[in-house]
């Protein structure tokens, strides 16, 4: 938006410059009042002036005079002075004598009368300026009435100069004035032709039949070689204003194709300065001539919409795809040049036109935003936090909290020691996230109703801050699971019913669980032991240790403490481990991993590992190879910091796709990317993702490569190709080689405040300007340096007694003390009135 503004500032300042560079010798007062003698003697050769003669102001001429006066400034910019000539009563000369002369204004150049205007032709500033310039620029602006006249002029200009042809529905309008003002500046460069005949417009081939609006065409006659053919014309799309005409003429005057030999990022042309995009045709030595023709062809198509430049790749070292043949630079600052591979010239044109369309829309939006900027003061107090708003909309609903025990500072410790496991939700009753979690917590309570050995409870930290501080609760909300009086685990999973329920259930079993017999170990791997977990889908991990491997065992036990609640971990270290290790072909120390639902057991050898390594390794092993991405599980995969290869599907993916993707994912054990899929039926927000990537919904399923962590480029697997391992691999190769063009790039913008805050500092300064808020405040007045303070806390009171004391001291001692006596009595009578507030 700022560049948009800048661009106008630029054009406007240019115009101002044009206008102010015209020599003016205006006096301080714009409308001079002179006597006839003074006026005629002041006339200078070549200088135009508009004069109005009057005896005294007749009431009828008043509005006319006002318009003349208003126009004085505008006319002065064109070197035309405006003079009101006061005729003496007895004067009967040519201008002063005749009664009807007072109904006219006279335009002089030097002392030659150019034209006289009836006052009703000069009805406003536009008409004054338009008519007067029209009269003065008689040669520069040809007025035509017939098609023949127009063609004659056109033919005469061919090969010599260009023509600006304007149609205005009537003279004296704002459009007329704009054309005349343009003619004043450009009249020597181009031939201006003006008409008020709508028929001429129709014959120029303009498809728009609306004759009520003014039109302007630029006729490229200078280049015209064929006398039989009419000159090429470029219509101005915008309304006729001085700025638009100026802009249009600048564009028409610019070279059709600019040849450049530097980095496009650095190139700047008239087009960019005027806020239009610049299209680069990337050329090579071999194809230079053809490229030049293409560039010219495109340039004609884009005339007035964009600039075209021809860039020789041989001269500039461009770090872009060799295949790229077109580049697009937008006038917006900070937007990088886009390099594209386009097939034909139409694509170039649509590219620019679409861009314009997009810009148009964006401009509209920006304008809306501007409107809203003003209204923003009213929006600041509208809640834009989805969680806070959702919770406050829900506040009237009473939550079923019966299942959850309320703990207080007094009951906290006793309650903890009474139950094997106490889950405590620490929350603040005024905090939205807490209340949102409390809702899920009630659902958990519902799920776990009747589960023995688990007590769900809550502590409102707003009521009992002491407990919360003691329990080291620094965030709202916090869930901790206390094991009978002893250690506690902080829940660090999703604030969600199922995950929390499963966490609570899994943490009931000690982690790792020591398995005594081989049967237990086998049952454990089958998910049948311990029985309280058999109904919960979970992944079971079994550490198999020989008695010798104590180091790995200790690390495993510590890892168990950390992962408690997330996974079940078993530990088996009997002498006959050999039977287990033989069965699963591992040698202790080793891990056996039984995924939930699956029948297979994987064996993983344990080398020397720290607890941290082991935790990380187990976490990694818990991830699926080709997962279905959901809102809940995305973070686990995000943490890998790898690009995503994600298949968006409306419903389940087909077996074929699943097989191929799985092959792809399994093929490389240390994948450089996360292969996954997303079910739009289950995770509808995926549509929002696609909507952000593509303008139109791609046909589903669609395979996307998105590098979330570096660059944020999004690539779409070609829709024509089948999703097979081979195809994907070769596509990925191409991506790697930089041969593909991203469909979009993720915004790397920071998250800024959604709305401004109340600027109280400014409000205070506005309201109390004399309060010296600035630190440049003079020293003497600071409270610390105040002279001995008299009783009274604030200024008003402080001053009162001190002044009186002063007065007492100033007077003579006798009178002074005499004065004190009645003061004792009089004080009450005087009693200071409460100042009205």
């Amino acid at each position, binding site marked *: 938006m700022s560049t948009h503004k800048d661009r106008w500032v630029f054009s406007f300042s240019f115009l101002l410059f044009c206008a102010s560079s015209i020599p003016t010798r205006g006096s301080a007062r714009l409308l001079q009042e002179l006597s006839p003698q003074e006026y005629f003697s002041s006339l200078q050769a070549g200088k135009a002036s508009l004069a109005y003669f009057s005896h005294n102001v007749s009431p009828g001429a008043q509005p006319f005079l006002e318009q003349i006066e208003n126009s004085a400034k505008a006319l002065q910019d064109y070197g035309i002075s405006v003079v009101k000539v006061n005729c003496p009563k007895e004067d009967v000369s040519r201008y002063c004598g005749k009664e009807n002369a007072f109904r006219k204004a006279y335009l002089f150049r030097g002392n030659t009368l150019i034209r006289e205007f009836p006052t009703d032709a000069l009805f406003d500033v536009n008409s004054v300026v338009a008519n007067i310039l029209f009269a003065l620029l008689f040669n520069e602006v040809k007025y035509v009435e017939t098609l023949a006249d127009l063609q004659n002029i056109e033919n005469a200009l061919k090969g010599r100069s260009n023509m600006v042809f304007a149609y205005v529905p009537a003279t004296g309008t704002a459009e007329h004035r704009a054309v005349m003002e343009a003619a004043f500046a450009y009249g020597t460069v181009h031939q201006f032709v003006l008409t008020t005949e709508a028929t001429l417009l129709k014959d120029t081939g303009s498809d728009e039949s609306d004759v009520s609006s003014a039109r302007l065409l630029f006729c490229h006659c200078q280049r015209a070689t064929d006398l039989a053919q009419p000159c090429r014309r470029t219509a101005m799309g915008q309304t006729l204003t001085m700025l638009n005409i100026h802009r249009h003429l600048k564009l028409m005057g610019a070279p059709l194709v600019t040849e450049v030999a530097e980095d496009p990022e650095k190139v700047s042309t008239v087009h960019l300065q005027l806020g239009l995009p610049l299209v680069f045709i990337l050329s090579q030595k071999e194809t230079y001539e053809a490229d030049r023709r293409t560039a010219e062809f495109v340039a004609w198509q884009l005339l007035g919409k964009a600039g075209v430049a021809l860039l020789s790749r041989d001269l500039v070292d461009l770090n872009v795809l060799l295949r790229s043949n077109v580049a697009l630079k937008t006038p917006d600052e900070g937007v990088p040049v886009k390099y594209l591979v386009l097939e034909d010239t139409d694509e170039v044109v649509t590219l620019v036109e679409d861009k314009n369309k997009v810009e148009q829309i964006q401009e509209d939006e920006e304008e809306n935003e501007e409107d809203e900027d003003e209204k923003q003061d009213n929006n600041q*107090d509208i809640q834009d936090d989805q969680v806070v708003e959702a919770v406050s909309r*829900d506040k009237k609903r009473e939550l079923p909290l019966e299942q959850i025990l309320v703990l*207080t500072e007094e009951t906290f410790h006793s309650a903890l020691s009474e139950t094997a496991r106490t889950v405590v939700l620490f929350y603040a009753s*005024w905090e939205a996230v807490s209340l949102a979690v409390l809702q899920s917590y009630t659902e958990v309570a519902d799920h776990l109703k009747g589960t023995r050995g688990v007590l769900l409870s809550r502590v409102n930290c707003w009521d*009992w801050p002491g407990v919360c501080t003691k329990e080291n609760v620094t965030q709202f909300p916090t869930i901790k699971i206390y094991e009978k009086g002893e250690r506690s685990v902080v829940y660090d999973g999703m604030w969600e019913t199922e995950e929390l329920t499963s966490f609570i259930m899994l943490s009931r079993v000690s982690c790792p669980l020591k398995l005594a017999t081989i049967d237990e170990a086998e049952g454990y791997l089958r998910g049948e032991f311990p029985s309280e977990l058999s109904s919960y889908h979970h992944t079971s991990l079994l550490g198999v240790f020989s008695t010798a491997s104590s180091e790995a065992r200790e690390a495993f036990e510590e890892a168990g403490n950390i992962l408690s609640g997330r996974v079940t971990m078993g530990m088996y270290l009997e002498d006959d481990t050999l039977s287990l290790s033989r069965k699963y072909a591992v040698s202790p120390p080793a891990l056996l991993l039984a995924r939930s639902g699956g029948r297979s057991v994987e064996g993983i050898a344990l080398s020397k590992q720290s607890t941290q390594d082991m935790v990380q390794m187990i976490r990694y092993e818990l991830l699926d190879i080709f997962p279905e991405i959901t809102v809940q599980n995305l973070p686990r995969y995000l943490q890998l910091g790898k690009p995503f290869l994600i298949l968006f599907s409306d419903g389940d993916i087909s077996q074929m796709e699943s097989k191929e993707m799985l092959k792809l994912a399994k093929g490389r054990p240390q994948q450089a990317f996360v292969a996954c899929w997303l079910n739009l039926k289950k995770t509808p927000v995926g549509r929002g993702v696609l909507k952000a990537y593509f303008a139109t919904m791609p046909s589903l399923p669609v395979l996307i490569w998105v590098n979330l962590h570096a660059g944020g480029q999004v690539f779409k697997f070609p829709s024509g190709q089948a999703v097979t391992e081979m195809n994907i691999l070769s596509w990925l190769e191409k991506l790697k080689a930089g041969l593909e063009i991203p469909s979009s790039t993720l915004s790397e913008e920071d998250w800024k405040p959604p709305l401004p*805050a109340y600027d109280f500092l400014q409000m205070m300064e506005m309201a109390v300007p004399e309060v010296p808020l600035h630190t440049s405040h003079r020293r003497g007045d600071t409270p610390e*340096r105040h002279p001995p303070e008299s009783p009274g806390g604030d200024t*008003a009171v402080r001053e009162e007694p001190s002044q009186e004391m002063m007065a007492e001291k100033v007077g003579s001692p006798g009178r002074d003390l005499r004065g004190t006596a009645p003061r004792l009595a009089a004080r009450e009578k005087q009693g200071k009135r409460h100042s009205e507030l």
Partner: protein
Amino acid sequence: LGLALYTGSLCAVTSAAFLYHDYCVIGAGPSGLQAAYFLQQASRDYVVFERSHAPGSFFALYPRHRKLISINKQYTGKSNSEFNLRHDWNSLLSHDSRLLFRRYSRDFFPNADTMVRYLEDFASLLKLQVQYNTAIVHVTLERDRQAWNGHYFLLTDQDRQNYKCSSLLVATGTWVPNVVNFPGSEYVEGYETVSINPEDFAGQTVLILGRGNSAFETAENILGVTNFIHMVSRSRVRLSWATHYVGDLRAINNGLLDTYQLKSLDGLLEGDLEDLAIIKDKKGKLHITLRFYLDNRNTSAGIDSITLPQDELDNFATRAPYDRVIRCLGWKFDFSIYNSSLRMMPGKGNKKKYPQIKPSYESRGTRGLFVLGTASHSVDFRKSAGGFIHGFRYTTRAVHRLLENRHHGVPWPSTVYPITQLTNSIIKRVNEASGLYQMFSVLADIILLRENATAFEYLEEYPVGVLAELEVQTGRKAPNGLFVIIMEYGRNFSGADKDVFYYNRAVGEAQHAWQSNFLHPVIYYYKRLPTEREMRLRPPDWPLPRPDAVHHIVEDFLTDWTAPNAHILPLRRFLENCLSTDLRNFFAESCFLFAFTHQKLPPFCRQGYARMQGLVGSEGLRRHAVEAGLLEDYSLTDFLGDGPPDSHEGSQDQLLRDHAIPVHPLQHLVNAKDE
């Protein structure tokens, strides 16, 4: 046994030279005991000297009529112990919930004997090291480069026993009665000895000098039995409900105002006591005259030769003779025990009853000497509560924290939070913190921002007057900017001559919060720590120099600042704009969308969802968010690819704007307190 005696006497001999402690506290009143508690908790080497045989000797005598005017609120409707301290003005701070004053008295204005008992219990239950019957009569310095402050404090008690300390905490209060000397002042009875039995005043006419709570308390006691009472003082009466200063005349004592204004014979007069003279006539009646008349006369002459004002001015106000004149002029700090090398100077103007100290409570004259309790009130005299138990219990804690940092390398306690908890931590504190509330404009919470504003450090109740020295005084670093959370009254609201009941005195709308009049939280934002020069040159009546931004949380009738739209939302916007970030909360679904469509995540998603702790939220809540237009429901949209790709975010924001329904505050309810 002989050996024991010998070593014992040896000890006595060496201790006759001096007994050493790191910290010496003079006075076992409320502030001395409070300091002792913190020193004890930190296992410091300290001793408290008390001249009496029990703690709180001032309260054993004062107030003479035994009614404390610090409120002891039994019920607040809340269980929050920190919040309840806001309305418990008598308890000292401790971990022991038995030592809450409401367990000692059920009276709203408790008896002073209860305070004495409470202080005894406080000292004994907490096993504080108090040495009773030890009156420190002299304090001097011993230069020593090795000492903490370049000198030791040498204390001498009434038995010539010497003590040596590295740091001296003066908690002696202000106990020396103010007296005025004028001709005839020998006829004046002091508040400290005057009878408190109303019967002794039956049918008498009484003149009271002074206009503080002790004067009115005395008047209140005898109001019903006297002929009439007149009260003279230089300054006009200052009502605490108009000045918002608890040391001014409290409503509980103001019966005399009633009888004066209803012309029931009692009255108030203004005049300088220095100009007074009292003459006793033959009948023992006391006549008021002026020093001026006496100067011209031979004082030895009898009463008849002395001109009385009424001789010249026959309607002179105090022309009626009095039976008694009572002086109730308050107290001042005992400066007498300090050697001049300590440069314990009286304050200036109306603070001359207090020693000069810095806003850190350290003496201006001597490093390592801190003044605690009532004697430290010069910092906030006639402003806040630093001269009273409910104020200085917090300033004493602040001094202890300063000392822990200075001498023991224990930095000011702080908690580090993720930035997502910024709004919450402020809201929590302004709603419950008692220190901020009582010591408004004096103690402030400080939030030190960590780099990139991803986390912050929270420091509680730091003396705001030494903000510039924060890094040195706390041992914490503030390189990335800071917030200062403080409570303030409206700038022109309080004062003796102010009408505090005027119509529309309360502000209801958040956007006008800066005009709030009643006590409300104010948050100052500084991009860097203000310098000492900036602190010195701050505008008058401002507790702090000009900040880079400031936020007022609008005053609240219930002092409950938890309203989502009126309190929390504007605060969040302020914090967001200071930090240039988005502090909104998001459901996991939104974070999911952002993760796939933005290279960066908002803090809430980054610190929650991305770390596997997203807020999934119940179905019902997400539906509410969709209805509010703040969450898009993609399962419903028949997706037709409307809108260009880049404008997605815009369109959601658009959605946001279109659907958000302006919440019009219920004007009449908001302003109910005015009507």
